[in-house]
């Protein structure tokens, strides 16, 4: 978990030198790291009494259940999109949700750019390159945000985000945008694929090799960082391995190196190459989990995946991300069975989860405290403001202040989520920064308006419905933006704010944008964003 970029102890002209690292760190500390740290120690892993009723029953496929599913699997679905899925029926919708997507073109040609020869560059050149790296990462964040809001009713981007948090690797240490892109791409390609393939690709990709100090670890005194986190965080969990296993595994993960773009790992032979491999890899026997042999990194991974705890660990993380922070042990065991039976394919597990009535139990409605990125992007999309993040710096401010900077997780643990998003600083900030979109004023400066209020209001009204437009608006806004279903008191409260003394029939959704009526809509939205229920989904 060191913050320093490791160096291969050879004359490797492609490795960044101290100057480059210093300038890079300066930019990181200034623009990427914030005191609003949302890293937290995860709560002990225990499962509470399951509060849902567990009789098998048919899942009712309606606006409520579809919305519940979509809130957790795509970003910012609108009323129209929810309607579409209701009409499509459960089977088709889930099929589409889990369908493999065509890979997008990369954010730029820089993703495969050759590494500079640092030693030959002047300090001005170095600074220019580092700055361009930082600019590319910013553009990369926006590119990803755009993909998340693409309106496809498909889970791929959220799964990519899930794996990003799972295998949390941070740009501040990885240093090369090429490596960060390569990792993100792996997450996308293998998002619902085979976990064994995924973890091999991640382990032997340049980003992880740098992030957890695999690169350059040598047999005489190997580095224990990856060995421990592999077991503790990625596969087995605390207490399911011993310190001896960590030592043995660390000896197996020797001899691999990367320069930030390429590695010396061969996916076909499952070995390293070059003198780094022959000289630094420990070819001796190691005893790992009771088995002795001349293990390599791949052997360790395979032995770990044989253990029952591994499937449980993976499924628990999936459950926690998609449903709630406190899983029931029985349900996790069922998920783990599906994972093992399907030889570690992730898709069947997701299918199992999303077609199980446990997932749709009313106790889980609103139980998820939204992560800042989805809160922001989801709100923008629902307010039809998709261009917002890109024209202004605001998306950077959101990530930075609300504690979720894409490509810069707070530590190896990723984003714990849930209550760790909220504290006496981020909670008020979440309110203020979100309704800044409506009033165009934020603590970080004012910006132009992308919000077409009449258009949004009209999209919330079904002309065939006889209920007054303003009532439909209140109820639909609450449906889209509040995690907990409206109770009568709150409904009244919201109506009062929207009406502000007028009668429902006074509301006319065909009035032009400058009409004072729309101020009430703004007030209503602002109030909604101040409610605790707004944080939940």
């Amino acid at each position: 978990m060191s913050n320093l970029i490791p160096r291969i102890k050879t004359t490797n002209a492609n490795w960044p030198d101290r100057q480059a690292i210093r300038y890079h760190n300066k930019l990181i500390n200034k623009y990427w790291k914030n005191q609003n740290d949302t890293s937290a120690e995860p709560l002990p892993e225990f499962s509470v009494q399951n509060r849902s009723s567990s009789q098998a029953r048919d899942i009712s496929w309606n606006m409520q259940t579809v919305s519940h599913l979509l809130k957790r699997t795509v970003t910012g679905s609108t009323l129209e999109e929810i309607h579409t899925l209701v009409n499509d029926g459960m089977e088709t919708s889930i099929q589409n949700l889990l369908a493999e997507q065509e890979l997008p073109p990369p954010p730029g040609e820089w993703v495969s750019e050759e590494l500079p020869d640092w030693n030959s560059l002047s300090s001005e050149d170095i600074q220019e390159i580092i700055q361009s790296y930082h600019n590319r990462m910013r553009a990369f964040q926006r590119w990803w945000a755009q993909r998340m809001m693409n309106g496809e009713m498909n889970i791929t981007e959220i799964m990519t985000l899930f794996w990003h948090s799972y295998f949390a690797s941070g740009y501040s240490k990885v240093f090369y945008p090429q490596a960060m892109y390569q990792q993100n791409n792996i997450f996308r390609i293998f998002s619902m694929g085979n976990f064994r393939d995924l973890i091999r690709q991640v382990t032997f990709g340049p980003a992880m090799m740098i992030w957890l100090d695999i690169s350059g670890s040598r047999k005489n005194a190997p580095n224990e960082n990856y060995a421990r986190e592999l077991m503790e965080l990625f596969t087995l969990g605390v207490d399911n391995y011993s310190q001896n296993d960590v030592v043995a595994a660390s000896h197996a993960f020797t001899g691999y190196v990367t320069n930030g773009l390429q590695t010396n790992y061969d996916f076909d032979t499952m070995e390293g190459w070059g003198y780094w491999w022959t000289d630094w890899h420990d070819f001796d026997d190691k005893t790992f989990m009771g088995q002795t042999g001349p293990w390599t990194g791949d052997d360790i991974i395979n032995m770990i995946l044989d253990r029952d705890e591994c499937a449980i660990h993976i499924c628990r993380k999936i459950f926690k991300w998609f449903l709630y922070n406190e899983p029931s042990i029985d349900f996790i065991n069922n998920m783990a069975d599906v994972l093992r039976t399907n030889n570690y394919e992730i898709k069947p597990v997701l299918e199992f989860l999303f077609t199980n009535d446990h997932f749709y139990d009313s106790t889980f409605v609103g139980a998820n405290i939204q992560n800042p990125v989805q809160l922001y992007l989801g709100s923008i999309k629902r307010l039809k403001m998709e261009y917002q993040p890109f024209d202004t710096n605001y998306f950077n401010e959101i990530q930075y202040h609300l504690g979720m900077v894409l490509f810069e997780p707070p530590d190896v643990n990723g984003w714990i989520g849930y209550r760790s998003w909220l504290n006496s600083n981020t909670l008020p900030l979440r309110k203020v920064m979100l309704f800044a979109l409506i009033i165009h004023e934020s603590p970080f400066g004012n910006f132009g308006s992308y919000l077409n209020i009449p258009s949004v209001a009209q999209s919330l009204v079904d002309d065939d419905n006889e209920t007054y437009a303003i009532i439909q608006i209140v109820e639909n806004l609450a449906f889209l933006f509040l995690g907990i279903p409206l109770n009568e008191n709150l409904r009244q409260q919201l109506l009062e704010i929207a009406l502000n003394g007028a009668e429902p029939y006074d509301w006319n959704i065909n009035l032009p944008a400058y009409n004072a009526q729309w101020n009430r809509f703004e007030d209503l939205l602002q109030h909604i964003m101040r409610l605790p229920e707004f944080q939940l989904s």
Partner: protein
Amino acid sequence: MKRRDFIKSSVVLSALGAGIPSLLLAANKRFSFRNSAIDSDRIVLFIKMNGGNDGLNTVIPFQNASYYQERPLVSIPNGQSLPITDTLALHPALESWQSLFNEQKLAIIQGVGYIDGNLSHFRSSDIWDTGSDEDEELTTGWLGRLLELEYPGFPNNAPDHPLAIQFNSANLLEFKTSESNTALYLYDPDTMYSLITGNYVNDQNEEIPDTYGGDELAFIRELDYMSFNYSQVVNEAAQNAPNTIMNYPNTNIGEQFKVTARLIAGGLATPFYRLYQHGYDTHVEQLYRHEQLLSELADALNAFLTEMDALSLLDRVLIVTTSEFGRRVIENSSEGTDHGTSAPVLVFGSQANGGVFGVDPDLQNLDENGNLPVQFDYRQVFSTIITDWFGLGQETASNVFGEEFESIPFIQSQLSTKNIILPSKFEVQPAYPNPFNPKTTIHFSIPSKSHVKINIFNILGELIQEYNLGFIKPGDQMFTLNGKSLPSGQLMIQLITDFGVMSQKVTLLK
């Protein structure tokens, strides 16, 4: 893995969602801690060095040949470290701490940890936070339990001031109770105040569904409510503070110390501050990074203590540095060190018993993983703070940790909460010595808790210095004026309390 059901006090705690937290709004709302024996003006700052600070390179056994043998590249060269005893020296970045040690203001407790030290960051941090053994899992923090004992029913009947302030993420286990979290996360008092007021929706009386969603909703409402109330109190204290005289380093830890100083000087009665410094997990290229971190910490800490001293608040504060573990004795092949076990805990303060507790690290007798043995259980340190610093009695400490842990005598003047005879009126003694250079002391007594402020005027009647002592406890008190930055000649010392104002002339002869 054992799970221990914690023995709660006999007070039944309200279930979240069923009870509505209500602040006890006293008529005289300012500065009152009710229902607690933590009714002193003493404060503890806990500094977490996150990642596992290398204790061996912090407090160095510089005469021990093994130290250099085991760490050919990572050891601090002999001659560069700063000796404090015949056998121990401090890291070269810690010059200010060497001075503090020589002034008896630094207590070093060697070999602090716990049996079967766990080498996982998260597990070990949890252990330190919850006060558990290695093989048991507790779900509440030791400070959470302490505060819950002292303020039964929290967050109901919560006092006017935050019980604890933390500068890093919320939901640290440390302050967690079975129902709630006793710490307020603070970044900047001004920002906090302006953000929170006006955006608070009062929905405390609304119903909450009996679902997991309802649980999360209740949590958010409570956080909203507490933030709202405490932001006002914190803001008041921050506005009340005299302008800072110190230049705090422009670092994250510097900022944390600066805000803490401001709140203490402004009279905030919060007894616990939790500060954080990240980056100590030095697996790779340790020397450079470690040096940077330690000097950032030392500079910030020094600025803080200097300011406290100048404001005559130094006697009230204690600083304790902790880390989730130390590091391996032998270096690795990446010029770094891996996770270890025990390490020294450093305690700073004018009321600390300066010196070294425990023996030098025994590099010959390492455990099977090559790690240092434990000399003191970490709970001994915490227990001592409960009994000696806050004077809360052994029973409280035993309740918090489930058993008794032997205290370590690193606190000089133990606070006793036994009844004392209170003075019947407000009295001020003449300053002594007078004339003086550089310091003079005024003894005064107040019959009950009072705000105390001291103004210094020069011979022309101009106000040249202000000291805000805050809201201090009754009895015999004293104030020491340091004339280092004051003009030579006649000065007027004005003591302003809730019982009246008294002035006297003194002469500073430089």
